[in-house]
C-alpha cells in the first residue's frame, strides 16, 4: 500500500510517500528564513509560499521515492490544527488528488501524527508498530505543549496541555527579548551548551502541581523583568550564555518532571516525545536521564521528524487504513482549532 501525504499546517511545505510502514520519501521545504525577517510566522506569506512550493515538493518526493502518481493507493493531509490558509492548501490539493483518481482519503490531526512519530526510526525510516506499547507522549512545539496518554494504537486521551504559552513560544519570546534571531530555540540551545544552568533562578510554573497542565507565560514575564532589572547583562557573552542556560533549564525541568510523573502515575513503562522543541539537546538529555532513573523506556522522535513533516502524516494514515479507521470525505473542511480528543 502506498500513501501520499501532505503537511502544510504552518511554515513547512512537506510531502511524503510511505509504503508498508517505510518512508520512501519525505521532502520538506521550510519557509523559516523568510519568516525570520518578520520575527515570526506571517500567515498570509505562509499560504502564498505553500501554493508555490507544493507541486515542486511533491514532484521531488515522487522522484525520490521512485514511484508515480498512478501507484498511490491512499491520500492523506493534515486537516488541523494549524494556520487556516496554510492548512487549506495541502488539504484541498490532497482531496483533489484523491477525488481525481478515486482513492481513499484521510484528514489527519497534526498532533495525533506527532504521537506516532517517535515510532518511526532507522534508515530508511520505518514505523516500528510491532514494538508499540502504551505510553505517555509529550508533544512540545512552538504552538503546543501537551501530555497524552496513548493507551493503544489510535486510542489516546489528552492528560493536560498548556494554559497559555507553549514551551517553544517561551523560547522564542525569550530570544526576542535578548535580541536573538527567530526562531530562537536553536540559538538558545547553542548558547546554553556553554552556559551555567544554575547561574540564575527562574520559576518552574506548575512543576509541583498535581495535574498535567503547563503554563509558561509567567516564566516569560519573569525573564522580561530579569532583563529589565539587569541592563547590559545580555551584552556580556558569558552572562548571555548563562541566562540562556538558566531559562532553558527552567523550561526543561518542568517538561521532564511532569512527563515522568505522568508516566509513573499512569503506570505505563514508556515515554515518547515529539514536536519541534524535542530537537533541544538539553531536553533530550534530561528526558533520557530521568527516564533511565525511573526505569522507563524513552522514544524520542528523530530530529527530522520532530518538526512538521508529512512522513508522520503518511505513517498514521497507513495505520488508520490497516486498522479500518473511518475515511474522511473529500469535501471535508480544514479544522484550524482541532483539539486532540
Amino acid at each position, binding site marked *: 500500500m502506498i500513501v501520499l501525504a501532505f503537511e502544510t499546517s504552518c511554515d513547512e511545505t512537506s510531502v511524503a510517500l510511505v509504503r508498508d510502514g517505510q518512508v520512501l520519501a519525505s521532502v520538506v521545504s521550510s519557509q523559516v528564513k523568510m519568516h525570520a525577517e518578520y520575527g515570526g510566522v506571517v500567515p498570509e506569506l505562509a499560504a502564498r509560499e505553500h*501554493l508555490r512550493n507544493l507541486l515542486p515538493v511533491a514532484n521531488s518526493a515522487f522522484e525520490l521515492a521512485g514511484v508515480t502518481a498512478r501507484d498511490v493507493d491512499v491520500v492523506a493531509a493534515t486537516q488541523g490544527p494549524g494556520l487556516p490558509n496554510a492548512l487549506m492548501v495541502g488539504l484541498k490539493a490532497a482531496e483533489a488528488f484523491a477525488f481525481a483518481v478515486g482513492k481513499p482519503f484521510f484528514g489527519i490531526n497534526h498532533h495525533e501524527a506527532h504521537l506516532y512519530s517517535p515510532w518511526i526510526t532507522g534508515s530508511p525510516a520505518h514505523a516500528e508498530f510491532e514494538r508499540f506499547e502504551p505510553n505517555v507522549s509529550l508533544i512540545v512545539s512552538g504552538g503546543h505543549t501537551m501530555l497524552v496518554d496513548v493507551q493503544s494504537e489510535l486510542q489516546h486521551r489528552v492528560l493536560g496541555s498548556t494554559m497559555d504559552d507553549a514551551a517553544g513560544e517561551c523560547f522564542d519570546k525569550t530570544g526576542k527579548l535578548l535580541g536573538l534571531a527567530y526562531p530562537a530555540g536553536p540559538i538558545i540551545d547553542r548558547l546554553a551548551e556553554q552556559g551555567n544552568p544554575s547561574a540564575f533562578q527562574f520559576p518552574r510554573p506548575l512543576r509541583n502541581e498535581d495535574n498535567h497542565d503547563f503554563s509558561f507565560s509567567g516564566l516569560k514575564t519573569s525573564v522580561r523583568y530579569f532583563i529589565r532589572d539587569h541592563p547590559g547583562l545580555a551584552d556580556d557573552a558569558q552572562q548571555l550564555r548563562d541566562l540562556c542556560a538558566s531559562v532553558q533549564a527552567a523550561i526543561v525541568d518542568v517538561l521532564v518532571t511532569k512527563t515522568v510523573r505522568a508516566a509513573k502515575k499512569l503506570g505505563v513503562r514508556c515515554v515518547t516525545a515529539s514536536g519541534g522543541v524535542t530537537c533541544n539537546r538539553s531536553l533530550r538529555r534530561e528526558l533520557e536521564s530521568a527516564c533511565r532513573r525511573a526505569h522507563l523506556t524513552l522514544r524520542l522522535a528523530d530530529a527530522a521528524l520532530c518538526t512538521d513533516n508529512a512522513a508522520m502524516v503518511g505513517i498514521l494514515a497507513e495505520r488508520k487504513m490497516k486498522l479500518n479507521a473511518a475515511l474522511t470525505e473529500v469535501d471535508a473542511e480544514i479544522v484550524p482549532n482541532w483539539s486532540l480528543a
Partner: protein
Amino acid sequence: MKILALDFSSGQRSVAVACGKAHVREVIDTSPGKAMKPFAMIESVLEAANLTRAKVECIAVGVGPGSYTGIRAGIALAQGWQLATGLKLLGISSVEAIAAQAQSDGLGGVVNVVLDAQRGEFYLATWELTEGTARELEPLRIVGRETIESSGDRPLIGPEVTKWFPHGRLLHPRAATIAALASTRSDFIPGEKLEPIYLRETSFVKAPLPRIV
C-alpha cells in the same frame, strides 16, 4: 477539450464543465458563509455533462482578484488534480470573466469592473464591450472611491458593486464564462505558477535586525 472551470473568488461560487463552446454545464452555490463543497459541485456538474473525472483534460481557475481563501482553494484543488493526472491548467482573471459575462448579457460600450480591494479601496478595470468582443481598455489597478465616482456615467459592474455604488450592476465571475474563455486559450501553465492576482504590495512589518543569529 473537456474543461472543468472553477470560480470561488466571490460569494457566488461556481463550477462548470465545457465540452466545446456549445455544451456547458454549470452549478452555482450562493449559500452564505465560507463553507463550500467544491467536490460535490464538481461531481454534480460532471454528472450533468455525462462525463467522468478521468475525462477532464484541463482545469481553468478564476484567479481573482477576490477572496484569497476561495481563490487559493480553487488553485490548490487544481494543483492536486494536476499532480494526480497531469492535466493542463489555466488561470483566468475573474475580471475578464465579469466583462465577458456582461458582454454576453448584452451590455455594450465602455464599462468599469469594480471589486472590493478592502481598506476602503477598489480593484478597477475598464473594458469596452461590443457585439462579439470584450476588450480591456485599462488594466486592473487599485484606486480610491473618488476615482470611481469621477468616472461619470460609465456603467459599474461587479460582484458587490451595489454595496458602495447603488446604481451599479451586480455581476459575479461565473465558471461557465471562465470555461468559455478557457476554450479559446492555450497558454497552459504549470500548477506551481498558478496564483491569485496579487496587485497590492505586502506591507508586513519587519523585525529589527537581531543581535545574534
